[in-house]
């Protein structure tokens, strides 16, 4: 007789009750995980994947969340009919979860050691085993070394904010492993981390699954990372399982249109689907030379001075007219600092910046400068004043920089809205009445109001849903054609840049480690960091995987700021 599957969900219906009304959020969900399998549940926000996960663990808010029908069996036992006490015994012991956001998952006023000790202590108590502190300490330190954290005593003594994101994520994994669970659920693992760190965490999970004979259930919206870390995939949409199958089947021959849509939305790194942008040989419009930016934190009384932070060092680059120039980098690489210096918002400590031959110092004093360079911000929610209508927001640059009179203003606003493909009625709307993509279009319209030549785009699509990103990018491309703009595109999303930029500069720890046409950088990356970075990006086909640069373990270790420090 075949062993019971670790987890079997059959016909699960779930609803949320508020003010006497029940809204059904899960419809007949079926899911099956065999022991030792790695299963992924894919879905965008609102698909119901998080709710399903919470129901399995037993942390649904009650009485709001109610199971309306169906069953969940763990190793043959029906979970939904268990008493609360029995259910609690499974938490952290048989079924464990690794949470998504390593920063907010910890209470900031307690040490890591305190968190881990309490979790272990109460788990032991629930199982009726009395343990002493020394024994628990041993087990905690053993688990920490399993997740490859060096200096476990130091980690245990630290407060959450003293550790890096990667270290915190490892601690969360350790917390989940403390009691040797049978089923490990990972909630969007690594989403809050840099792609290189995320890659390391995925490798760690794979290693743990094989070493500890774990069963892994991964819940995520990122289809690409699933390919390397799962055997079987379930696709969810609007509370239903739309499609399921082995990884190679789903990626190779997706049947349902929704699945195909999700796969299509992932920008390709290599292969025929890549949108290649040509690098023209036009004259340089922005040049920088040996830029250095050092930040000195103001000295606080009675504390030793903190060492100055070098955000950018020796940065030399050249952007030609009409380019879509990308500056790629992970957090802390200095890319945002570069953008702000080029905008004239931040004076460099040393080095030169010239726009069309004129130095930045000269330009900053020239009010007409603002007509030439504008910026579109990352977060649409904070880039528009929530208390001003679209028309009022657009009127500001028109009135001040453009000196457009009252009469003409409405016409100009209508034109701007038309340029960003928004209907004219939107002029009287407030930001909260707009979607994320619409807000971003308004932000673009505002930047265009003064008729700039150069647009600095600071991660303009990071805060948007994947499906909306594409529409905004398309708009930007068409605007560039129409208005002859030059773009400086700051981002951490290399797949996006692969298909959008024609030239790329890769920044690492404040230095530009690689620069060239997109084609050259991706096909023949020279610097070890660039190679490691590209190699970390999850792709959706074997062919692309093979086309990625090869990086040895030593090279990875040597280059990356290890997440274990």
């Amino acid at each position, binding site marked *: 007789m075949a062993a019971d599957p670790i987890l079997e969900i059959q016909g699960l219906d779930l609803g949320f009750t508020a003010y006497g009304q029940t809204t059904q959020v899960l419809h007949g969900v079926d899911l099956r995980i065999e022991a030792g399998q790695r299963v992924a549940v894919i879905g965008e926000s609102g698909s119901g994947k998080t709710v399903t996960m919470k129901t399995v663990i037993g942390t649904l808010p009650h009485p709001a969340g109610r199971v309306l029908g169906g069953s969940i069996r763990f190793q043959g036992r029906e979970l939904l009919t268990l008493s609360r006490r029995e259910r609690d015994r499974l938490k952290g012991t048989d079924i464990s979860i690794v949470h998504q956001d390593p920063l907010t998952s910890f209470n900031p006023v307690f040490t890591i050691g305190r968190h881990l000790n309490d979790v272990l202590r109460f788990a032991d108590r629930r199982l009726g085993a009395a343990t002493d502190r020394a024994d628990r300490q041993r087990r905690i330190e053993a688990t920490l070394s399993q997740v490859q954290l060096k200096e476990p005593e130091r980690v245990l003594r630290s407060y959450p904010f003293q550790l890096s994101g990667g270290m915190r994520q490892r601690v969360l994994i350790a917390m989940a492993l403390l009691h040797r669970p049978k089923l490990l659920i990972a909630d969007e693992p690594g989403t809050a981390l840099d792609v290189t760190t995320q890659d390391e965490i995925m490798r760690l999970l794979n290693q743990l699954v094989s070493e500890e004979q774990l069963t892994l259930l991964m819940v995520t919206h990122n289809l690409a990372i699933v390919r390397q870390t799962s055997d079987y995939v379930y696709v969810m949409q609007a509370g239903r399982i739309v499609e399921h199958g082995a990884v190679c089947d789903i990626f190779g021959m997706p049947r349902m249109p929704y699945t195909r849509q999700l796969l299509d939305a992932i920008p390709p790194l290599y292969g025929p689907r890549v949108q290649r942008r040509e690098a023209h040989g036009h004259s340089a419009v922005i040049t920088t030379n040996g830029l250095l930016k050092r930040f000195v934190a103001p000295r606080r009384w009675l504390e030793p001075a903190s060492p100055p932070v070098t955000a950018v060092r020796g940065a030399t680059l050249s952007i030609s007219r009409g380019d879509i120039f990308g500056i790629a980098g992970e957090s802390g690489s200095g890319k945002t600092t570069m953008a702000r210096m080029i905008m004239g918002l931040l004076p460099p400590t040393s080095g030169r910046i010239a726009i069309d031959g004129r130095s930045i110092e000269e330009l900053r004093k020239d009010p007409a400068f603002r007509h030439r360079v504008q910026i579109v911000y990352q977060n649409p929610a904070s880039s528009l004043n929530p208390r001003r209508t679209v028309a009022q927001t657009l009127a500001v640059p028109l009135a001040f920089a453009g000196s457009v009179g009252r009469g003409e203003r409405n016409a100009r606003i209508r034109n701007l809205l038309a340029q960003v493909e928004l209907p004219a009625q939107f002029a009287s709307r407030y930001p909260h009445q707009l979607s994320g993509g*619409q807000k971003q279009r308004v932000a673009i319209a505002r930047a265009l109001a003064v008729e700039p030549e150069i647009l600095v785009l600071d991660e303009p699509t990071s805060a948007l849903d994947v499906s909306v990103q594409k529409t905004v990018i398309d708009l930007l491309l068409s605007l560039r054609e129409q208005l002859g703009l030059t773009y400086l595109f700051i981002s951490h999303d290399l797949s996006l840049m692969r298909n959008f930029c024609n030239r790329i500069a890769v920044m690492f720890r404040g230095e530009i480690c690689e620069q060239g046409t997109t084609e050259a950088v991706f096909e023949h990356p020279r610097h070890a960091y660039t190679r490691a970075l590209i190699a970390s990006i999850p792709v959706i086909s074997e062919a692309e995987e093979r086309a990625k640069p090869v990086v040895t373990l030593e090279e990875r270790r040597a280059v990356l700021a290890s997440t274990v420090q």
Partner: protein
Amino acid sequence: MTAASDVARVVDEPSNLTRAWRRFLRNPAAVIGALIVISVVAAAVLAPSLASYPAHAGSFVDFRSRHLAPSLVHFMGTDNVGRDIFSRVLFGYRISLLLVVGVLGVAVPLGVLFGLLAGYFAGAVETAVMGFTNVMLAMPPLVMALAITAVLSPDLINSMIAITCLWWTWHCRLVYRVAKSVAAEDFVEAARLAGASHMHVLFRELLPNCTAAISVKTTLDAGFVILFGASLSFLGLGVQPPTPDLGTMVATGAQFLPEMWWEAVMPGLAILYAILGFNLLGDGLRDMMDVEI
């Protein structure tokens, strides 16, 4: 999702304001607060018509009717010189509301202005304004008000001045905090990059984001100004007799506790009633506008 659908998605919800009002009306405490405030304002405005004995609000004595317990004729009884307490309470509300208008009318704009300046310009302006504000906030407000009113002669205008001198600092600190966090948002920088003047940023970009917090605090403060004013006059430093003032009435009535309890308790409850109304209303506004104070 195609470009067309992303763009054409019309958000067809009722405006934020309508939703907020509905939230307000669903909150029974807020509605009660609003009704109380309306009744207090009505009482003050219509005092001459509503009071059973309007003449008692001035200098009036009728020693035969002294210390009468509350009855149908005198709803709140009479005081030690025979005046109808209910009528005096209604007129007393006039003084209270005058105080509120006088104090908040000056303190709020002053505090808002300095708070905006400190939050936006930071640097030396911030240090100067907030340094001064912190000094004022360290002082027990009652003591300062007592000192000021004692120095000038005690009457309505002078108590207003005394209270205003302290009150603006609370609004300044509140607006400073809000303005400072709003000033860090991208849209403020975007406005400056678009060439907006400092005036525009202060009053067209920052201020509209502060109005919710300011309205809630002003409403709550109306109650607290009344409380403060009553405390001042309880100590004998507010309006002088025979003008009816609620705090003074409590002070005079306190001499006759516990036998003629109504002489102190009734005006006390009247003060409580007014403050309660403003407080409930302010809380309701706070919930409605989802503001953190």
